[in-house]
Every structure is written in C-alpha cells, then in structure tokens.
C-alpha cells in the first residue's frame, strides 16, 4: 500500500501542501470562497520547523495506532488492507482522546466542527492532494518500504 514520505531537505516551508489539503477537503474547493466561510476547511497537515529543516507533519497511519485504542466512540478503526486509520465522522463526538495520545502530534482538533483534523490520504483520489501541490517534489507518494 502507498504511504506519504517526505524528502525533508527539499521542503521550503511554503505550505502549499497545507492549502491543497484544506481545499481538497472543502466543499467549495476554492481558496477565495473557503476562507470567507464561518468554519473553513482546515489543513490536516502542518509544516513545522526544527533545526534548519521543515517537516510536514500529518498522520502516519501507524500499524499499531494509539488513536484507535483511545477512541471511546468507535469512530477510529484500523484498516489492515488499506494500511490506514479510518475515521467515521458520524460516530465522532469530538472528545479529543486521539489528539491526546498521538505520539506525533499529527492530529489537531478542529474546535468549530468538533472533528479531529487527520490525514485520510485523500481516500477518494488517486493520490493525496499534497503530492502534486508540492512545488519541489518533497512530498513523495510511494509503496511502503
């Protein structure tokens, strides 16, 4: 199964992946419209800086996901075949247990929608939006090593 990797040295911190992520998960799909909404779609990925490098941070779809254990509402499940953590928004109550236990800080709370912001690998698309959004090719979409 395919996984997102990052060539950190290539990341310039432009945050194009953040924008692409927010917009691809929005209803409008348009930046100008989306930012004027009361609860705009927020990026599920954040580029953070540390010691001279930029690191896109998003859900890694751990094989033993702590968030799935922690979910007290049954909204999170691990799909072995797809190799990813699935989130059922209709079951989620916004208790933030997943945020509390994610060892990578890769899940953020969206307070307005009461839903956690987490990468879903753009599940209905061929490849995640951040891949083609990256101007330097730092986001890599390839088979898991």
């Amino acid at each position, binding site marked *: 199964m395919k*996984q*997102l*990797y*990052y*060539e*950190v040295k290539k990341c310039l911190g432009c945050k194009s992946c953040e924008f692409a992520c927010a917009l691809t998960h929005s209803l409008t799909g348009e930046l100008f419209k989306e930012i004027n909404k009361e609860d705009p779609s927020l990026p599920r990925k*954040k580029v*953070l*800086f*540390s*010691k001279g*490098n930029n*690191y896109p*941070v998003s859900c*890694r779809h751990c094989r033993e996901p*702590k968030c799935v*254990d*922690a979910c*007290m*509402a*049954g909204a999170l499940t691990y799909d072995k075949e797809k190799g990813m953590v699935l989130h059922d928004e*209709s*079951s989620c*109550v*916004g*208790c*933030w*247990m997943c*945020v*509390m*236990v*994610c*060892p*990578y*800080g*890769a*899940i*953020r*709370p969206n*307070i307005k929608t*009461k839903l956690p912001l987490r990468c879903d690998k753009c599940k209905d698309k061929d490849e995640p939006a951040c891949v083609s959004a990256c101007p330097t090719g730092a986001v890599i979409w390839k088979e898991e*090593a």
Partner: protein
Amino acid sequence: MKQLVVIGNSAAGISAVEAIRKVDKTSKIIVISDEDYPSYYRCLISYYLAGQVREEKLLYRSESFYKENNIELRLNRKVMRVEPKRNRIILEDKSQLSYDSLLIATGASPKFPHLAGIKKRNVFGFRTIKDVKEIEKILPVAKNACILGGGLIGLKAAYALKKRNIEVKLIVKSKQVLSQMLDYKAAGFVQKKIEENGIELIFGQDAVEIIGDGELKAIKLDSGKVIGCSLVIVAKGVSPNTDLVKDTPINVREGIIANEFLQTNIPNIYTAGDVCEGFDLVLNAPSVNALWPIAVEQGRVAGQNMTGQGLKYQGSLGMNSLEFFGLAVVSLGIFKIKEDDPNFEEIKFLDEKQNIYKKLILKDNYLVGAVLVGDIRNSGVFLRLIRERINISSLKDKLLNENFGYPEIMDLVNQKENLYV
C-alpha cells in the same frame, strides 16, 4: 481444552478477549457481565443523554462479534466471589464456574456518600446505560437537577442535562471543578464556560440531606441552604469493584494490585481496566488510572499474558481529555504541585483573551505533567515525552512555542527514521 474467564464486558474485557483470540483460537472463553446490555461505549452515555449520539452508536461490539470469535457471553450475571484456591468463581445465583485463567475487569462504581435520603427515587449514579435510561425517563417531568460533584462525570452529566433543557446546579465541595485533573487556574476557564452556558456552580458546599417524602423534593447543603430539585446525580467519584475478591488472598489496596504483567499475586488471575491498580509511570507508584484508552491497553496486555506471551506493561499515568462547550482541555500526569516546591519546575503560557492556558510541569529536566486549556495541540507529543522519560533540558524553551511539534523531539525519541514519514 482450557477455559478462560473474563469478568467484565467493557473496554478492558473486550480488548483482552480480542488479544487472546489473535493467538488462541481454541480455548473456551467466557465473558461475564453484570449489565444486561451488550458491550457499549461507556463514555458515550452522556452524549447519548444529551441527544447527540443515537443508541445504535453506543454499541461497542455486536452480537456477531461473540459468535465469530467463539466467545460465550453471559449477561446480567454478577460474580459474587473468586475462589483462587479452587480456580473457580461463584455467581449471584450460587452457580460456579471454573477457569484455567481469569481476568478481573469488573470496572468501578459510583461512590454514594452516606447521607439521609440517598436511596430515594430519582437519585442516580452516572455510570451505566441503565442509569442514563432511567434518567431519560423522568426528563419530561423534571425541571431542575442538582449534581453532586464537580469531576469529569459531574460535568458531563451537567452538560447533557443542560442540552436537554434541564436547569442544572453543580454542587462542588472543593473550590474548583475538576480538582482531580486541573489546577485552580485551568479550572477557572472551564468554570467560565460552564457558567456562560447557564449552569450554576456552587462551591465549597456539600450535600447533607436529600429531602422529600418518597418523591425527591430538594437537597440540603451543609451551609443550611436548601435547593429544590427533581433530579439528583451523584458524581463524587468511583471506586473499583473489588467486592468479589474481598476475603481472598488477592491483594487489594484501592484497586486490585497488578504486577508489570498485569497479574495479581495469584499467577493465573489477571486484572485490567478501572479495577486495576497498576504501576503509575509518573508517580512511580501503584495507582488506579481509570480511563478508556488505558483500559484498552491493559486489557490487551492482560489478554496476551493469559495466553502465555509474558509481555510487560510499561505502566499508565493519570490523564484525560475533555471538550466542554467548545473549550478543549487535556490533563496529563501531575497537574498541580505545592507552591514553590523546589523539586519541580513549571513552564506556563497564558492568554486570557483567547482562553488559552498551558502549563508544563518538569522534574529534573523530565516532563512529568501538563495542563492544556484552549490549545491542546501536541498533547500526544507531551504524553510521549512523559511516557518515554525523555530528558528535555535542550527543549525547555521550545515546548510551548506556537510551532512546537514532533520534529523538535525527533532526535530525542527512541525511534530510527531513515525516511521521514
């Protein structure tokens, strides 16, 4: 054929049987529950009462789960006694059940204080789906409710009732809410939210009597004040359900004491979940940490060890997460220290306007606790720093930065990354 018995059908029990069935498809597994409801997401009961979660969403494991995994489920059966010497348990109906290996995951029950009238109708605990269904029944005629206790359960009950348009008063003995997870400052933000949303808080007072002839009418506080109400929820904490091991050789303090394999002092008896008194990583001492994610973790380890895998459980710590009228709060490990205690160091950030308060507690350059209000990002990273006991002397000034995150601790944690994921 071996017979594995699991007492308790919630997070720890289910997690244990799942772990067992992963490696052992043949042993007989019997799960016993004193509730008559199939396994459900206990933490959702307040959301259910609030009308935000439908009943079918409560179901934790469906009936087919037990069939598919060849598990015998016995509902509505209370275990009265464990007899370790005979490797058997005695049920309420005096029937007996023998085991090769036993897991006690009996959970906990609300503490009911000894005060006059506490047995009256319409005085409830807030633990089970049964509690909630009974509360729901009287909602059409109830107007106002008093909740005894300002802990998480009390707050959740208050929130749910408020959502159902019941007038709610929260009676808190101490000077703040959530005194078991937050410091005074952090509690202040939560209290503000509570009051903004029309729930009345009464601090420093405790109920002394529940008044009414048969029907509940009011409660009387130690200040002499009498508050009329048609519904009382008692939320003054829970105590582990250890009655079944009373007068047995099984060691009990607050909960049933477990070693690092989540074994009791009797080798073929294990314990997990809210009844289990395991090792607390932060306190460096045994403690009961009753929380859903911990129960799931412990259940898994206990289950694995019941199949002889001999896995060590690294220990738990007190933690919790809460979302209250749009305010997110997380508490990890030690949340409060004595003023000017030289053994600890505090790092704080406060933005009253934005309702953000963050406090980290360090001891000897190790993170031992955190309170996060309004901005709970990276709480999992903090949890990791606590759990993995990472020396953070090089990071101290960065921890509360807006852009702090996993990349900052990458080279400190015990994880090799060839390609950054």
